[in-house]
C-alpha cells in the first residue's frame, strides 16, 4: 500500500483529488473564491494533464475525483473528461448549471451510468434572494437544468453556500429542502456550507476565516501547481493566493503527494477540519 493509501485509510488525507479545470465563468458571484467571471484569465488545466494525473492518483490509491473552477462546463471537452474520470473513480463536478443547454446535456448522457454527480449551487428558495449573490436569472436557469439532468438519470447534488449556515432561518432552509426533494434530490445529496473568506468573499467582507488548520488536506491540482485544499488556489485582486500552495510541480503526482503528506503530518493534535467544499 502506498503512503497516500495508508493516509487515506487512516483518515489523515482525504481520498479525493481535485482538479481546477479553469478559472473563467459566465457568472460573477459576490462570494466567488476565485474571482471568476467572463473576462478573467482562463488558466485551463489541459484535458490530458487531468487524465494523466488522475491515472497516477488511481495508482497511488486515491478514491475519488472532483472537478471545480470557474465553471467547468464552459469547456467543450468537459462532458467527455468527466465521463472518463467517472469510469476510473466516483467523481463530483461543481457547476452553476446555467450552461447546460441541450447539446451539453446530450454530451453528458454517458455519465448517467457512472458514479458521477453534478453538484449545483443553489443558495436560497427565493429567486430574488438567490440571484442577489449569484446574478440575474440564476434561480430560473438552475430550476430548469436540474430536472433535465435528473430525467436523464444523471446524479445531481445541491450545494447551498451561506454566510452563516448555523444562523439560517429554519423555515427558509425547509423551503429549500422541499424544493430539492420535489425535484427528486434526497437530503443526503444536499450540502450546506459556509462562505469562506477568501477571494471575492474577502474583498466583500463575507464569510468565515479559514486557515489550513480548519481545512482538510485534499490534494488539489491546478495549472499553477498543487494546493492543500480546493479552498487553496483562490484569487484576490487578480492575484493567485500562495499560502496554501504545496508545490509548483504536479508531475509525477507522487511529488505533491509526498509534500502534502509531510504537511498533513504537521497538523496540530486535535486538528478538526470543519469546512468542506462538497
Amino acid at each position, binding site marked *: 500500500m502506498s503512503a497516500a493509501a495508508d493516509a487515506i485509510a487512516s483518515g489523515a488525507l482525504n481520498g479525493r483529488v481535485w482538479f481546477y479545470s479553469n478559472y473563467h465563468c459566465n457568472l460573477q458571484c459576490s462570494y466567488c473564491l476565485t474571482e471568476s467571471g467572463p473576462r478573467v484569465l482562463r488558466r485551463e488545466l489541459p484535458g490530458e494533464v487531468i487524465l494523466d494525473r488522475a491515472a497516477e492518483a488511481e495508482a497511488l490509491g486515491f478514491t475519488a475525483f472532483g472537478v471545480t473552477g470557474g465553471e467547468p462546463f464552459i469547456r467543450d471537452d468537459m462532458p467527455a473528461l468527466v465521463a472518463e474520470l467517472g469510469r476510473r473513480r466516483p467523481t463530483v463536478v461543481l457547476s452553476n448549471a446555467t450552461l447546460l443547454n441541450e447539446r451539453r446535456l446530450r454530451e453528458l448522457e454517458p455519465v448517467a451510468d457512472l458514479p458521477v454527480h453534478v453538484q449545483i449551487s443553489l443558495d436560497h428558495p427565493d429567486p430574488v434572494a438567490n440571484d442577489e449573490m449569484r446574478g440575474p436569472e440564476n434561480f430560473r436557469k438552475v430550476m430548469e437544468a436540474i430536472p433535465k439532468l435528473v430525467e436523464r438519470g444523471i446524479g445531481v447534488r445541491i450545494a447551498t453556500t451561506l454566510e452563516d449556515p448555523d444562523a439560517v432561518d429554519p423555515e427558509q432552509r425547509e423551503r429549500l429542502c422541499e424544493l430539492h426533494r420535489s425535484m427528486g434530490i434526497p437530503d443526503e445529496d444536499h450540502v450546506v456550507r459556509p462562505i469562506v473568506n477568501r477571494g471575492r468573499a474577502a474583498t466583500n467582507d463575507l464569510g468565515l476565516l479559514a486557515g489550513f488548520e480548519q481545512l482538510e488536506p485534499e490534494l488539489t491540482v491546478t495549472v499553477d501547481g498543487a494546493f492543500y485544499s480546493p479552498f487553496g488556489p483562490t484569487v484576490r485582486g487578480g492575484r493567485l493566493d*500562495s499560502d496554501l500552495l504545496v508545490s509548483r510541480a504536479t508531475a509525477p503526482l507522487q511529488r505533491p503527494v509526498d509534500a502534502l503528506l509531510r504537511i498533513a503530518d504537521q497538523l496540530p493534535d486535535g486538528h478538526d477540519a470543519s469546512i468542506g467544499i462538497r
Partner: protein
Amino acid sequence: MKHRRSVEQHANEDAVSTAAPLVELVMRDQAPLLARRFFGDGPPSPITASLAQVPELLEVALPFIGAALGPGALDARAKELAILRTSALLECRYCVQTHTAVALDCGLSAEEVRVLRGELELDAAFTAERERTMLAWIDAVAAGRGTVDPGLQSRAAEALADHELVELTLTVTATLMLNRYCTALDLPVSAATLARLTEEGF
C-alpha cells in the same frame, strides 16, 4: 503563469529599497505551507521571498545556501572574502551591498572591504600569504575560464588543506549562482542595509 504584484502591496515598504524586482516577493501572509518555517518574524530576505514562489526549491536551496555560505571549516572571515570578492567580480549589486554589511559585521576593516570590492589594490590591506593565496584562488575560480593555472593550483594546495580548498571553491561557486540569480531578478537590497552602508561611507 505570472501574477505580478507590486512590492508596495506586499512587502514591508521599510524593508526593501524602491527598485521593483522582476518577480513578486512572497511575504509571510502568502508564504506556502512548506516555506513558512523559513520566514522569521521580520521581513524575509528577497532571496527567501522570491524562492518561496517555488516552495519545493526553496526547501532545498535555502539550507544549501546557508551551509555553503555560512561558516564551516573556514571561518566567517574567510567565507566573506570569497563571497564579497566573487560578487564584486560578477558585479552583483545585491550581493555586494548585502555582503559589504556582513563583512563589516564579521570584523573586516573598511579598507579590506574596499579591496574585496575592487576599489583598492590588494597590497593596501592583505599581506598574509594564506589570505593572498585564497584571494588569488577566488579570482581564478570566479573570473577565470577553463582550468586554473597549475602554479596557482600548487600554491593553493600548499596553503590550504583539501577540505578547506573544497569549501572555499564551493563558496565561490555557490556565490556565482546567487550572483546571477539576484542580478537577473533585480532583487532589492533592504532599506536597512542601504542606510547602514551610507552610514559607513559606502
